């Protein structure tokens, strides 16, 4: 799953450690999400959305294409 976590964090000049603290996860979890190595749980995705004040779909892109995307919309 693609995400804009790194960009949003850089815009706010926030370190991974600070974001991890706000989300109550380890720094390595934030790192793995940014690198696309780990998909966050629904709860964590909502926490990220709260921290950045943006809807979840503006931060995470599940990469749905074609019929799946139309069905989701």
């Amino acid at each position, binding site marked *: 799953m693609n995400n804009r976590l790194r960009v949003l964090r850089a815009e706010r000049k926030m370190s991974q450690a600070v974001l991890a603290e706000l989300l109550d996860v*380890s720094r*390595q*979890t934030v*790192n793995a999400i940014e690198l696309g190595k*780990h998909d966050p749980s629904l709860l964590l995705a909502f926490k990220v959305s709260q921290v950045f004040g943006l809807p979840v779909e503006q931060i995470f892109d599940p990469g749905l294409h074609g019929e799946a995307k139309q069905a989701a919309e």
Partner: protein
Amino acid sequence: MSKQTQYPRTGFIGAMCVLKWEGMREIDRANEKRVNVLSVFWALSLIGVSAAMAFLDLSRDLGFILPLAPLTLGLLCLRAYLKLLREMDELLRQMQFEAMAVGFGTGLIVGMAILSLPIPAPWPTVVITVSMTLAYCGRIVLGAREMARNARAMEEAGE
């Protein structure tokens, strides 16, 4: 030198350092410590009770009551492990579940292989337990190495 680079990030030691110091929160460390302490007590009680049953001339009642000690400690250990899993950082939890799947899968495969041998295998329980433990630990180490790789990529990117 920043706090993150005060320990190695390559090799087995480096992977374990990243896992313990960057991949775990305080609550994970506390929960893991509880599981480790209870596991040691469980193992010691198991050895102690087995030795007592083998070498001491115990009464029949005591022979039934004594094995309850490791059973109780084992159940406490299991409860502590469930608490650890529930409260664990989600990346670590994923690693734990994968390691458990690999461990139990290996146990099943090795167990079936032992059963299908034409001759009775020596110490089948030990062989199965050791293979399960090695597979479980191996998967954890691979997960930690992945963490260390990610940490290096992060440092190279200037984080």
